[in-house]
């Protein structure tokens, strides 16, 4: 189906796709947040001073949260509160790298998981597309629910990022194996791999790997942002929309990032999720590219490894459209860190009056009228704003991106969302 709204970025915003995934060395120290999913932290299983092996469980997984593992072998030096990239404060475990107590033994032996959700929980798999939602919660469906289509999301969720693309090129077989495992779990009928049209090499690689098989097929997506957003992806691939207020599985579809599929594949081989691919880029970075980074390594350490040309004016975790600006670089890489961007220009220009050019209306993939939402919100007319459905905004930022008046549209809509949640919304 034709993509609705959105923006097409110039080609130069999709750089560094030719840089193979490079492993960064082991960090001397990691700060692993006890993050197993939204809501509450995982129960901590280690104490200060304790020696831990790489891959040892330090945060307990349960029905809602995925387990958290030590990502290096060493000693727990501190139990502290860290700031996650999105700004929340979260308990975390600081581990200083050291000699392994027992050489040659990897991790601790654990009972093999019976089902895929149990495995995903044990191996600490969160959705790697950026949202970091526990995979096992997406895999467990209420009785009677049936998923027919599994979509692997290979549409880079943001410009400037190329991690998904590199994974599709370099780990094709493992990604497909992970995808087929998810397919088998759901007893679903079709496995789709959605890749943007302009990523020809990845499309070719996956086509080759599937061998024209009927169970997994490549879907060439329009190269428009936000094609990587779940609802937009479902619309493009399956030609139908997920009704408002309904979960994708209720319509028989389940969407997973290609990195998540790779993590499933590795979990099947007994490997917990300890590292992820992070695109490090931005004008301030000397060696931009795609790096395999241990969870818990600090942004400052990553930037040190890849080298900085100058002091960044703005440091983003995620992409330039939805990423979070960081106040300082002592924030750990998490399972949701798709990219680290060190920019040399940070200031957003002063907004000028809205001229009603309708660029935001044309760009909105959700079908909203961002100019109305902002106009009402900034006047404090939250009831009127609520009548324009702020809750349907996916905060992709396309409206703010195209706005010639530099209006802070997304920011205003977030405000409207919060206020409409607080007051009783207008029907």
């Amino acid at each position, binding site marked *: 189906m034709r993509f609705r709204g959105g923006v097409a970025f110039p080609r130069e915003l999709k750089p560094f796709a030719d840089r193979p995934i490079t492993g960064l060395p082991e960090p001397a120290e990691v700060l692993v947040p006890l993050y197993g999913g939204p809501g509450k932290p995982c129960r901590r299983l280690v104490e200060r001073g304790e020696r831990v092996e790489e891959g040892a469980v330090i945060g307990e997984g349960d029905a809602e949260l995925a387990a958290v593992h030590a990502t290096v072998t060493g000693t727990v030096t501190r139990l502290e509160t860290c700031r996650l990239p999105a700004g929340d404060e979260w308990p975390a475990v600081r581990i200083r790298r050291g000699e392994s107590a027992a050489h040659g033994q990897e991790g601790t032996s654990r009972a093999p998981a019976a089902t895929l959700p149990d495995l995903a929980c044990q191996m600490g798999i969160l959705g790697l597309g950026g949202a970091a939602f526990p995979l096992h919660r997406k895999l467990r469906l209420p009785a009677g629910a049936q998923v027919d289509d599994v979509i692997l999301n290979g549409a880079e969720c943001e410009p400037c990022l190329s991690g998904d693309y590199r994974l599709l090129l370099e780990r094709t077989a493992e990604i497909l194996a992970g995808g087929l495992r998810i397919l088998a779990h759901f007893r679903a009928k079709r496995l789709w791999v959605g890749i943007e049209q302009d990523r020809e090499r990845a499309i070719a690689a996956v086509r080759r790997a599937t061998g024209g098989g009927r169970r997994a097929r490549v879907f060439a997506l329009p190269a428009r942002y936000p094609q990587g957003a779940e609802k937009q992806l479902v619309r493009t691939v399956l030609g139908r929309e997920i009704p408002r207020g*309904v979960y994708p599985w209720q319509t028989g579809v389940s969407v997973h990032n290609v990195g998540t599929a790779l993590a499933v594949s590795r979990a099947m081989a007994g490997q917990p999720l300890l590292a992820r691919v992070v695109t490090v880029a931005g004008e301030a970075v000397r060696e931009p590219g795609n790096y395999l980074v241990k969870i818990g390594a600090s942004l400052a350490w990553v930037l040190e490894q890849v080298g900085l040309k100058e002091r960044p004016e*703005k440091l983003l975790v995620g992409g330039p459209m939805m990423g979070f*600006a960081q106040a300082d670089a002592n924030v750990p890489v998490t399972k949701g860190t798709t990219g680290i961007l060190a920019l040399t220009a940070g200031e957003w220009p*002063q907004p000028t009056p809205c001229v009603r*050019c309708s660029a935001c209306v044309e760009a909105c993939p959700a079908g909203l009228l961002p100019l109305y939402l902002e106009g009402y919100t900034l006047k404090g007319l939250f009831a009127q704003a609520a009548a324009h459905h702020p809750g349907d905004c996916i905060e992709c930022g396309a409206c703010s991106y195209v706005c*010639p008046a530099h209006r802070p549209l997304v920011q205003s809509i977030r405000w409207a969302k919060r206020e409409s949640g607080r007051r009783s919304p207008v029907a």
Partner: protein
Amino acid sequence: MVVSPSPHLRRGRDVAWLMERVLLALLPATFSGLYRYGPAALPVLLGALAGAALGETFWLVALSRRGVIQDRSCLVTGLLLALLLPPRFPWWMALFGGLFATGLVKGAFGGLGSNFLNPALSARALLLAAWPVAMTTWVVSPDALASATPLAGAFPKETRLAALHLPWTVLLRVGGGGSLGETSPLAVLVGAAYLLATGVIDFRIPAGFLASLALGGWFLAGSRGLGSGDPFFQIVAGGALLGAFFMATDYVTAPVTRGGRWIYGMGCGVLTLLIRLYGGYPEGVTYGVLLMNTAAPLLEKITRPRLYGERGPFHR
């Protein structure tokens, strides 16, 4: 380091960039008018521009708003107004029109983005009411004269539209005379093509406008009964092209929704035609577009885009 909410990326366009595109797109029509009428047309051009800039500056100073004059929108208003006036129109009347456009129609309602009527068209409407004789003292283009009836120097526009039965192919090149900006429909089309190609304007408004005008013209405006009219004559004669591509597409006063734009454009065309054929005014574009301006908020209300996942008439 700078901390700000997402997004952190923006397209390089700003309002001044958009206004500059419109100014550029108006240059062919402007030069065509200046070429046709010579230096005699300069006073009206400069008068309207100066008036619009003065009206804008008044509000900027009064409200201590700085920087907004840099958006060039007042120059667009001034230039559009000049193109809507007769070439030998007195400069001080044009200046008054410019002042009215940006000072009252635009500035008094909150400035850029807040006016509900198109400033240039409102000014033209005011001038038509204030100085009807001056506003309808046209200079007939020599080319048009050569290829048609040899009418004397000045004559009312309605006579021109009714009596000058030029084939539209000739009109496309030379225009029907009339306002400064109506000397060459071709020049207007060149500018319009530029605006469409750069994505500054949306095709829906001019398409609806011109299609309804042509269809209505073919159906109603013929001398041999219904369906005998020349559809192209209505488009190329008078200010229809200028109106469809440069007036009706004014961001501020047009609907922001796609459906709204179709209805709005068609409404402009129908009203223009009705005024031309059955109204007492020489040309219908001004009032056609102004009337539709007032309908824009309502059109937006009834054509709200379907939300993602919302059930609607086109839901699958």
